[in-house]
């Protein structure tokens, strides 16, 4: 757009978005410097939900840390549990029985579907269609939360996984309910797509906005749907396979342009692939033990490990340093959304203020994980 040369002296204006803002997904603050309506610079300010999780991790024993991992990324509590529990199992070399592995995969893939539903609902909420897509997503999410409640006793903070397995076995009515949910979900995803994918407003507001080229994505350590929408084929379930993922047959959806629209399409594609994994897990789940017996006072050997999984938001990793006692010496959480935010100023430069909300929604942050 051509600027008129009028000889007027203009200045940039600084606008503060947040921390209390309807569209910042939590308490997140952005200091935006504008020239007219175009963004010149953006500075993210975080720490409004810093709850001292890493220091608490050093105060607690290994087992006491599991409920605190629920509260990291509070929408995907099962994935967080799994990442921590697998890190400790790598440290102490504990084998997990077959049935427990299948149950874990079922829970984690259900979590992936729940997270993507909420992410897409929240993105569209911010684009302006206040609450309709969110209500659609939340309606199906309630059915999956009922499944979590059946298995673990709680809707959100499940605290379900233990070192060497899971806490409770699946109740008898679980499999029937799971089969009916898995049978009904493809129709729901089709309905969602019919409403949104070819929608004119979504196309105009999301195509070409916040383009992230693949080299930049790798340099800025982005992971998850943000990276795959730029075309980089890196999914930790395929690359660095953990648990029993190599037995399942699934694809990794990739984007082409790396804009907000591609990230939305990648999330829809991942929901469909999770359904494929769930169907195979339901077929193959064996009978058997669900956990191993561990000593009362759990002291893993000395050393340090780093274990990472593909959580719905990206690469979630735990780095644990053990000095042979009952508490971790250093408990570090590699949080995907905190590191994905490094690229936010680059994505927003040159766009309008209204696009900031769409770009932030497509990165899909959760403040419990950003600030820990």
């Amino acid at each position, binding site marked *: 757009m051509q600027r008129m040369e009028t000889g007027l002296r203009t200045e940039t204006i600084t606008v503060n978005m947040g921390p*209390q803002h309807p569209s910042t997904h939590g308490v997140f603050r952005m200091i935006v410097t504008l020239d007219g309506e175009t963004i010149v610079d953006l500075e993210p300010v975080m720490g409004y939900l810093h709850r001292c999780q890493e220091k608490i991790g050093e105060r607690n024993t290994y087992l006491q840390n599991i409920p605190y991992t629920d509260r990291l990324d509070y929408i995907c509590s099962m994935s967080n549990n799994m990442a921590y529990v697998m890190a400790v199992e790598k440290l102490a070399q504990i084998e997990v029985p077959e049935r427990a592995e299948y149950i874990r995969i079922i829970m984690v893939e259900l979590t992936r579907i729940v997270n993507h539903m909420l992410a897409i609902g929240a993105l569209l909420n911010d684009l302006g269609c206040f609450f309709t897509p969110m209500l659609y997503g939340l309606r199906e999410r*309630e059915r999956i939360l009922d499944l979590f409640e059946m298995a673990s006793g709680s809707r959100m903070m499940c605290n379900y996984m233990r070192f060497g397995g899971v806490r409770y076995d699946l109740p008898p009515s679980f499999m029937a309910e799971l089969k009916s949910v898995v049978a009904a979900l493809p129709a729901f995803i089709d309905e969602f797509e019919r409403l949104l994918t070819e929608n004119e407003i979504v196309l105009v507001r999301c195509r070409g906005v916040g383009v992230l080229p693949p080299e930049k994505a790798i340099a800025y350590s982005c992971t998850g749907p943000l990276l795959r929408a730029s075309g980089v084929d890196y999914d930790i379930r395929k690359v660095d396979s953990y648990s029993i993922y190599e037995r399942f047959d699934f694809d990794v959806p990739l984007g082409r342009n790396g804009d907000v629209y591609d990230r939305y399409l990648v999330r829809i594609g991942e929901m469909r692939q999770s359904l494929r994994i769930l169907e195979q897990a339901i077929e193959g789940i064996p009978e058997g033990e669900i956990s191993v017996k561990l000593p009362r006072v759990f002291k893993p050997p000395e050393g340090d490990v780093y274990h990472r999984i593909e959580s719905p938001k990206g690469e979630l990793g735990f780095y644990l340093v053990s000095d042979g006692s009952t508490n971790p010496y250093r408990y570090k959480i590699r949080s995907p959304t905190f590191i994905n935010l490094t690229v936010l100023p680059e994505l927003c430069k040159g766009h309008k203020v209204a696009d900031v909300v769409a770009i932030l929604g497509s990165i899909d942050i959760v403040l419990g994980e950003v600030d820990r």
Partner: protein
Amino acid sequence: MTEEEYIAEQVRRNVIITTIDKIYNWGRRSSVWPMGFGLACCAIEMICAAASRFDFARFGMEMMRPTPRQADLMIVAGTVSNKMAPQVVRLYDQMPEPKYVLAMGACAISGGPFKDTYNVVNGIDTYIPVDVYVPGCPPRPEALIEGFIKLHQLIEGQTILTSPWYRKEAEREMPVPTLGPKGLVLPGEDE
């Protein structure tokens, strides 16, 4: 019909005799507009309470305003950290009276699982007055709705004669803490 019977009939249909308090409180409690202050995990359960399964629009509360100037109720949902507390108090001061505060979840009541750490406030009632406490981690949406019903009962029990917001000597503004080098500092306090 005679004239007296006619007048009696009309009065029975169109005239209600009640107290000012009852009408006033009925209007106020049937449309409490919350300002959802979703800080952390409890915010997700608050959104679920607003969604179609546990709808709180049946109570007239679906207008969740992001701005404090149009809200009656502040739902503090989630942990309040040291960095965020000045913002919470400032927003409370900006709400017009009559205003209520509902502390949702263990973290807003007393710090929750993160109590006694270097960046967490042990409960929001350290800085602002709270009317209803809803315990849980996170409380189920049904528990939050029970909290709302308790709030409605509280509102129905109030009366204009002794209400605090029409009095001159009532405390209007809560002091806003600032971020000092060792933690939060209230104005007028030594470090």
